[in-house]
């Protein structure tokens, strides 16, 4: 019996929802790790120690010059081969997206820290704050506001990039969609729903980011 598109969609909903949840979970973990790591990464770049600058620069360039997809393959296929480390495809996905997200949020954080007037550092130091205290009480609270809008943009990019993890076998939303299409041959409806899913997830974030940015200027 031929199913109508809508019936098909309803019938495959449980499978799609499973995929949605996978996508959301990968994005969620990656965003949390990217944010924490990225703020630290950005702070390390602004401390002004040569060896730290070289180290962070090297890390940054690794992710700038090598595509995420290659990183995913490297971690998923390469680690077991070269180091005998076996990670689930889900873990690999979160790991790679987080390592990449750290560089992106790190750049945002670096810019925010550097945009704070030089005198704030002088004033903080002159009352005897340690470097950690200086960041904790003076620089970070001021940088945070400036970080929020560009960070949200990075978050939408992380969400969209989760779709690459199909290729290391994560059954996220795109993969779930493909499985349904293979079974039923109904491509338009399923891809259409993926389209709507990503849009509904990322568009509000994009709007929010723009609103916050406007409110700050």
């Amino acid at each position, binding site marked *: 019996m031929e199913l109508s598109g809508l019936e098909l969609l309803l019938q495959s909903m449980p499978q799609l929802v499973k995929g949605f949840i996978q996508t959301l979970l990968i994005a969620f973990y990656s965003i949390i790790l990217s944010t924490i790591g990225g703020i630290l990464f950005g702070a390390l770049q602004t401390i002004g120690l040569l060896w730290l600058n070289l180290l962070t620069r090297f890390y940054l360039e690794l992710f700038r010059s090598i595509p995420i997809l290659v990183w995913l393959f490297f971690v998923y296929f390469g680690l077991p081969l070269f180091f005998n480390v076996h990670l689930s495809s889900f873990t690999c996905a979160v790991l790679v997206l987080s390592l990449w997200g750290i560089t992106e949020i790190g750049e945002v954080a670096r810019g925010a820290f550097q945009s704070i*007037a030089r*005198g*704030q550092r*002088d*004033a*903080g*130091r*002159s*009352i*005897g*704050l*340690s470097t950690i*205290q200086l960041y904790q*009480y*003076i620089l970070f*609270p*001021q940088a945070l506001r400036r970080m929020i809008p560009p960070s949200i943009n990075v978050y939408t990019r992380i969400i969209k990039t989760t779709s690459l993890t199909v290729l290391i076998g994560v059954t996220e939303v795109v993969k779930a969609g493909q499985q349904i299409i293979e079974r039923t041959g109904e491509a338009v409806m399923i891809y259409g729903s993926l389209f709507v899913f990503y849009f509904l997830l990322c568009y509000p974030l994009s709007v929010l980011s723009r609103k916050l940015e406007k409110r700050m200027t």
Partner: protein
Amino acid sequence: MTHTAASKPILKLMNVGKSFHKQVVLKNIHLTVQRGEVTVILGPSGCGKSTLLRCLNGLELIDEGSIRFNELELTPKGRQWQAVRERIGMVFQSYHLFPHMKVIDNILLGPLKVQKRSKAEALAQAEELLERIGLLDKRDSYPRELSGGQQQRIAIVRALCMNPEVMLFDEVTAALDPEMVKEVLEVMLQLAREGMTMIIVTHEMGFARAVADRIVFMDKGSIIEQGNPKSFFSEPQTDRAKRFLQQFYEIETWKGRDVI
């Protein structure tokens, strides 16, 4: 102010030198500051006076010579500046209050987080200091709600609340509207009367004359003249100092349009 010959200097600079990228900004600086003494550093812009001040609490590091603070040698690499900075207060040209904190939190940050003092005791001192400069009613304001003069007085209190042994003032009235200069200078004058050791970089000649125990005149990174204010202002020893002072007198004696 009088000092016995036996009194130990609170700060002693010997042969201090510093360069930025091969450009010499300080050279051959010898300076001794006694406890309770008010030293005013004068000189043309870019003569190194602000840099000298910043070297005293490690915001800049010196390349040559030595700085001794009480018995403590400040020069060695890896010096733990935090411990020194809580004993040497500094006030800046642009106040640099922390904009995200209320006035009271600006003042208490150092005493609570650096000196680990009890909240009640530090708060009592902060409020007393605010009371003395007449700004106790601003304790819960944010810096942006205050005038420049008020912010600068708060910045002075922020440094004072650490109970420093020396206070450094880096052109603290240079960014202020003229009518606010006085309220800040009054606070500093009062502080000097109470016996605080102060090192002041300023362009306010009248104030320098009134507050200083000693004038230090710098040019091109060196101290070229020092002495008591009376003799410095009435009979400067060097041509450079004469010319420098001349600039200020000339402006004071300008009349109407005949300058052009």
